[in-house]
Structure formats: structure tokens, C-alpha cells
């Protein structure tokens, strides 16, 4: 039970912190080094609203939306000039993260009062568990399902997938790839903000809060590969398991370093991450199906 709870915790943390980054990386090939700061922005907006009396769920949603809008503006102002220049975008997003982090500090000081974690706890046997933590795991799953739905069952999702596959062909079919990229970036940012909002009540709200998410989200995306859905979910699952196991048995240091070692070995063995692995398996299955028919 305790393991399961730990796993849920790690899984939801990895998924929620990585999915925004993963969508931007998968669709646009851009490594967003300001991802952590987008999470921070979401957390700030949420916390401000919640302390002003807005109900927490609403505050979280507005936090996500606000971060999405901010992401859209950043895209129009800066990132849109850097499509197809992924390495330059690394530099630019690093600059953005510097400005956001220190800007927040100048505007609101080194720390703002937080909100409490809602919902209390429940106990099974000897163990006590936070309800909100369980809720986070549920939300992580819902987010995955929602993203899946958007990508697979909406027109925008179709266009997005087409752009991801081949932007020139997609644009020849009438998809405005610039618009797709802008939307993707905004969507990824909104998910980052959502993550920030969700974790805001559990953390100390400071301008450098984003760095708490950076390593985990990057490792998840590395191991996941370019497919924001399949890759992120699988790598979140596997890494969550590895980490829970190491943390429960050997402490948080082992958990942290273990995560990195797994990531390094994984890329070496499966360079395209889980996305590549799944693609291969899927192709094999299809061929077998053909053979049977």
C-alpha cells in the first residue's frame, strides 16, 4: 500500500511536470529551458488568487490559462522567430528563465505566503495518506486522457499531429503550421502552469520553485522520447517505479541519482526513448496482423 502510494506520488509528479515540456519538445523540437519558470508562473497566479479568496480549483484553472496566454505571448514575441532553430531556442529560453525568475523576485520578493493543502488525510492500517496527493494522481491520469482526446479526436489535434510528422506537407494541405506551433507552445505552457497550480498548495512559493521541477521533467522527457503521450506516460510509469523503489529502500539521494543513471542508460540503449520503442512494436504488430489476414 505504501509502495503504491509512493508510486502514485512519483508518477503524478513526473507526468504533470513533464507533459507540457514534452508536448513542446515533441511537436516543435524545442527544449524549453524556461519550463520550470512557466510552472512557477502558474503557481504564483494560483497562490495569489487563492489567498485572495478565489476557490482553489478555479484559481488553478486560471493559473493554467494565464500561463498559457503568457506562453502564447512569449511565442509570438520570441519563440516564433526561432522555429527550426532548436539550439538557438535553448539560449533564448534560458534567457527567458533568468528574466522570469529574477523578475518575479523583484516584483514580489523572495517568497510569498502560500495556501494550505486542502482535503486533509485518510488512513489505512498504520499509514496516513493525503487525499490531495491521491487526487493529484487522478488528475495526472485525467490530463493524459484529455491530451489523448485532443490529439486523437479533434481537428486541431489532427493538424498538430500532421505538423509534427512533416510541417511542409502539412502546410501544403492547408494547415497553418505557424499557428499550430503557437498553439502548441501556448498549450504546453498552460499545462506547465496547471502543474504549478496543482503543486502550489503543497510547496513553498518562491521564484526559484521552477528548478524543483526541472530535473524530473527533463529526465521524463528524455526517457519518453518525442511522443508526448505514449512516451511521457510510459517513462513516468517506469521512472516512478524506479524512484519509489530506490527512495523507500535507499533514501532520496539514491532516488535522485538513480533517476539520472536510468535516464543515461536508457537513451544509450533506446535512443528514441519509449516513443521509438512503441513505434517499433506497433509496426511489428501491424505486420503480423497483415500476415494473418
Amino acid at each position, binding site marked *: 500500500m505504501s509502495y503504491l502510494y509512493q508510486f502514485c506520488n512519483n508518477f503524478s509528479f513526473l507526468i504533470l511536470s513533464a507533459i507540457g515540456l514534452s508536448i513542446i519538445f515533441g511537436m516543435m523540437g524545442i527544449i524549453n529551458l524556461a519550463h520550470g519558470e512557466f510552472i512557477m508562473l502558474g503557481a504564483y497566479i494560483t497562490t495569489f488568487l487563492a489567498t485572495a479568496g478565489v476557490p482553489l480549483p478555479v484559481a488553478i484553472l486560471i493559473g493554467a490559462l494565464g500561463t498559457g496566454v503568457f506562453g502564447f505571448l512569449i511565442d509570438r514575441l520570441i519563440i516564433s522567430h526561432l522555429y527550426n532553430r532548436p539550439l538557438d531556442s535553448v539560449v533564448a529560453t534560458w534567457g527567458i528563465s533568468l528574466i522570469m525568475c529574477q523578475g518575479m523576485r523583484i516584483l514580489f520578493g523572495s517568497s510569498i505566503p502560500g495556501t494550505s493543502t486542502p482535503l486533509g488525510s485518510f488512513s489505512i492500517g498504520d499509514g496516513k495518506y493525503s487525499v490531495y496527493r491521491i487526487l493529484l494522481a487522478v488528475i495526472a491520469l485525467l490530463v493524459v486522457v484529455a491530451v489523448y482526446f485532443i490529439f486523437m479526436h479533434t481537428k486541431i489535434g489532427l493538424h498538430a499531429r500532421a505538423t509534427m510528422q512533416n510541417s511542409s506537407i502539412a502546410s501544403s494541405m492547408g494547415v497553418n503550421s505557424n499557428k499550430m506551433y503557437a498553439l502548441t507552445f501556448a498549450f504546453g505552457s498552460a499545462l506547465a502552469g496547471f502543474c504549478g497550480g496543482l503543486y502550489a498548495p503543497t510547496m513553498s512559493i518562491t521564484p526559484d520553485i521552477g528548478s524543483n521541477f526541472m530535473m524530473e521533467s527533463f529526465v521524463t522527457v528524455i526517457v519518453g522520447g518525442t511522443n508526448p503521450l505514449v512516451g511521457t506516460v510510459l517513462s513516468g510509469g517506469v521512472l516512478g517505479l524506479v524512484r519509489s523503489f530506490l527512495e523507500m529502500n535507499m533514501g532520496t539521494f539514491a532516488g535522485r541519482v538513480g533517476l539520472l543513471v536510468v535516464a543515461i542508460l536508457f537513451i544509450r540503449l533506446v535512443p528514441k526513448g519509449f516513443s521509438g520503442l512503441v513505434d517499433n512494436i506497433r509496426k511489428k504488430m501491424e*505486420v503480423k496482423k497483415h500476415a494473418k489476414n
Partner: protein
Amino acid sequence: MSSETNEKVLLELIKVSKQFGGIQAVEDFDLKIQKGDLHCLIGPNGAGKTTVFKLITGQYPVSSGRIKFKGKDITSMSASKRARIGMSIKMQVPGVFEELTLRENIRIAAGNYTNAADLDAETERLIKLVKLDTIGNPPVRNMSHGQQQWLEIAMALSSNPEILLLDEPAAGMGPEETAFTADLVNELNAQGLTILFIEHDMDFVKQIARNVTVLHYGKKFAEGTVEEISNNPAVKQIYLGNV
């Protein structure tokens, strides 16, 4: 197999197969290229021609089968090693360094095979060979498509290869450029270079090739001289609407 035929065979593919994920790109493919041959590989889009080239040059490992070059098994040899023992390729998408100049490109290719002292002379020799010695030293991206193709042939020749693989040497060229390319290929072959090339354009094939192998769905479909193949009704069948 007698040792006599072995000596004449420069390149040999024996039951070569390649799968990607679950897709069978090339299946049980046999091919023998004699020394001095001017051999063409044809087939409809997606037949696996470029894959065969990549298997020969070592860009892809084979899934099964063997590849022999100069009588030696090179199946598990690295691409760069194959290049160093006498195998050169001009790729389908021009494999030239667009941001560099004409001469820098040649130097990159020749640098691996030529002493520093002789590099300038060798560069000029190769440029002359493909008749690009009249256009100065422009950055490659300012050169015409045809000129880029010829440049790549010159680069491929820098290793003094025994076999030259050309992936669609005349693709995207106008009639004049095509004719020039055909002359160039014939001239190189006349000097004793074995050439294996991929081509779509049957007219071009007829102008230069001696022997032709037809590839269809990753398998050998037919093989023979140019005349035999161009009169083969089954080959015409698979090519209808595809040329």
C-alpha cells in the same frame, strides 16, 4: 563457384534482407556486379533501391544475408571502412556541404586520401574531371542543382574508388544537364571504373547502362541487358504510369 568468376565479380549480395520494425524493405536479394560493369538498378517508387544502396555502403546493417566486395566479406564492416577500401557513393539528396565553397567540399572528401602537400593539386584535378573548373569557387548553395550533383561525383571520386554508386545521378536535371551527366558516367566507366546506379528515367538508362536489375517490393523482379529488360512485358507492366 569457381575462383575464375570470383575474380571478375567486384561486388556481390547474397540473399540480403532488411526489415524496418516489421516492414520488409528488401527480401532475399541477390546481386553480382562484374568489374568494369555499368549496371543499373531500376524499380518503381518504394521498391527498395535506395535501401539496397544503404545496405551496400553500410549505412544500414543487413537483417540477414551477406555482402562481398572484392571477394571479401564486408557484411559487418563499418561504412567508413567500406569507403576506405574503395567504395564511393553519390547520394540521392545531394550530400554536399551547402554552406561551404566548392573547393572546401572537395578538400573535405579528398582530405582523407591525400597528403596535405598534394591536396591542392588533387582538388584541382577532381574539379577538372567533372568540368567545374570554370566557375570559380562559389559557396555550394549558390551552385545549380546539376553542378551540385557533379560536385558530389567529384567528391565521391576523391578516394579513387573501385566502385561508384550513383543514386539518381540525373534526377531533377534538364535535358542538357542530363546529357552531360550521361557523358560523364560513360567516360568514367570507359576509364575502367565500375558503376552501379539507380535511375527512374528509362531513356537515361538506355543511354548508358549495360546491365539492368529490376527491383519490385524489395525482391528481384528481373535481370538482364538493357535490351532484354526494356522489351520485357512484365517490367513494362509494373512501370506503367510509374515512369
